[in-house]
């Protein structure tokens, strides 16, 4: 294996034998043993999967529930053994695939920290040295001597996450870790991800959140029915993943599926307009619902028209805005405002509407509106905001 390869998975298959009649008792085993028609159902979870991950890659793995992602992760972590094929890991890998493994509700927060630390391979002395930092990060000072069963689920995750990030491993496995926790703590987690990325650590992230995939991953892979269906560019994988759901949810509104527009069409962008002043960008998007939709969130992406480079994006979920359900023919208008930091050039926006889990896209529309910035003074910087200046000077008055 080459030096720069962190993980190499070679033609790995994994199947579970599911007996048609489970022999959980000896009687069952004895009776069935003498019967010729003992049958097993081979449940193939992973089928001939090969890929490799280089050192320093932030590798995303996406796929539907039951696609084999978690099994793959368990194989990587050494919890399962492959039925066929082999996998090599170069370096130390986090041994856990979930946060807070081994947490015991009857123990106090403090005791759980030490127990969990030991599971991650730390001695008591090591843990004692790190203890204060862990509690600081989790922001649970007042609760450490309470039993874990009295913690909220968010508090438990905070504690678990704070311990987990101490694990000294070369390769990190992260599976949907950010599912719980309030906004402030999520930000901490994202900062930690950013830090990992900056340090060039090797990370494997399994998630349903395409936002996280787009933001952190350098490469990604989509698994479906135990096979790799797409591997490589993050954006392509993310779109393939979203397409998986829009295909499934395709309804009466049949639409032309091209690269610039997809979704099931339950709600569509009926108007999009970008206005700019020297200081502000004002984006107005209008959506029309074609059915009753319970869960909905709206978003936009502002990108450079030629290169399609994402400049910035936002959505109602990120702004902590819960959108009410919409009824058929309801028109929703949103006005987004952001400081005008753009340099001269041509830009466009994508407008999107989807359910809050981002699993189902009602519509994603590239080039909903395009606009030009040309009246600014050229600059070498990446952004070009209005810079205000105020000069004051003071001199001693010379009198007479």
């Amino acid at each position, binding site marked *: 294996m080459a030096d720069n390869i962190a993980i190499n998975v070679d033609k790995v298959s994994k199947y579970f034998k599911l007996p048609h009649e489970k*022999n*959980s008792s000896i009687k069952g085993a004895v009776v069935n043993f003498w019967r010729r028609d003992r049958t097993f159902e081979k449940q193939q979870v992973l089928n001939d999967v090969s890929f490799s991950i280089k050192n320093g890659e932030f590798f995303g793995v996406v796929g539907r529930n039951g696609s084999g992602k978690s099994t793959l992760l368990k194989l990587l972590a050494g919890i399962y053994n492959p039925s066929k094929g082999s996998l090599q890991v170069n370096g130390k890998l986090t041994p*856990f*695939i979930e946060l807070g493994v*081994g947490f015991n509700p009857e*123990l106090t927060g403090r005791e759980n920290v030490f127990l969990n630390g030991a599971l991650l391979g730390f*001695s008591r002395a090591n843990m004692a040295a790190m203890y204060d930092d862990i509690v600081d990060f989790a922001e649970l000072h007042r609760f450490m001597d309470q039993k874990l069963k009295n913690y909220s689920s968010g508090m438990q995750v905070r504690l678990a996450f704070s311990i987990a990030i101490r694990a000294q491993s070369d390769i990190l496995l992260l599976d949907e870790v950010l599912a719980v926790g309030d906004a402030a703590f999520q930000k901490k987690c994202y900062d930690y991800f950013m830090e990992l990325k900056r340090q060039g650590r090797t990370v494997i992230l399994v998630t349903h959140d395409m936002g996280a995939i787009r933001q952190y991953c350098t490469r990604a892979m989509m698994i479906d029915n135990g096979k790799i269906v797409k591997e490589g560019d993050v954006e392509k994988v993310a779109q393939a993943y979203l397409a998986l759901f829009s295909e499934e949810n395709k309804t009466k509104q049949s639409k032309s599926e091209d690269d610039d527009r997809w979704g099931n069409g339950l709600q569509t962008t009926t108007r999009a307009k970008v206005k700019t002043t020297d200081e502000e960008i004002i984006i107005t998007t209008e959506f029309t619902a074609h059915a009753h939709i319970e869960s909905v969130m709206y978003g936009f992406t502002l990108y450079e028209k030629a290169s399609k480079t994402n400049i910035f994006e936002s959505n109602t979920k990120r702004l902590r805005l819960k959108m009410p359900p919409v009824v058929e023919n309801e028109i929703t208008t949103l006005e987004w405002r952001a400081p005008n930091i753009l340099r001269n050039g041509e830009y466009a926006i994508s407008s999107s509407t989807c359910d809050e889990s981002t699993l189902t896209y009602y519509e994603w529309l590239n080039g909903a509106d395009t606009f030009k910035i040309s009246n600014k003074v050229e600059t070498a910087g990446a952004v070009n905001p209005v810079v205000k200046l105020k000069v004051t000077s003071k001199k001693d008055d010379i009198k007479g």
Partner: protein
Amino acid sequence: MRHIFSKQNRALLSELVRTDFKLRYQGSVLGYAWSLLRPLFMFAILYVVFTRVFSLGKSVPHYPVYLLAGIVIWNFFLEMTMQSTTSIVGRGDLIRKIRIPRWMIVFSTSLSALINLGLNLIIVAIFMVINHVGILGTLPLVILPLLEVYLLALGLSFLLAALFVKFRDVSYIWEVLMQAGFYATPIIYPLSRIANISFQKLIMLNPMAQAIQDVRYTAISHNTITAYKLFQGGWHALVPFIFVAAAVVIGPIYFRSQSKYFAENI
């Protein structure tokens, strides 16, 4: 293999044992004191029942202590094997979600039982003093039969824990076997009460019987019938050790061969 007692593994073992003890007396007012009080009260009852009511051991010197030693060793064996049987399945949350050496779970259970044995032996020592048992020159040798019981229990623990993952009947079967074993072993009755010498010999092929008698011989009274005495040094005296050796070899080998599949079979 060279990492079996690495620093990390030792840290994890001590944490698992610690947790086990913390949880055992969770929520009780007296807490850890129960680990001494429980055997103390149990012995007090047995003492009254078997020395005052039934008086089984009139012929045996220091019968109360003799009885206690037998009970303590048997309970250690029972507790360790029963708890180990369900240990792997009971810790399924760990097995399915983290890569730690599987044997460590069984081993930590055995250490908890060993600590309990130590506490119980303190009580036995107290009874020895009360009962004016003289200190025998062979007392340090008591460690050997105790070690033998531990090894036997450990080998069986690995076997039972791995079997239990596949067959949940194992715990019930073992419980019944242990009930039978309790009466097939000279614990509450002295071996000398068995009139038939062939029966005596049969009983002493059992490693538990042999070990308990050896403990009594080395620590309490040289009048105790040991396997060595009974078989007059013949090769039959080795049979109990063959059982122990078989358990120590087969248990871990079977456990090792199955441990790969624990995560998916639990």
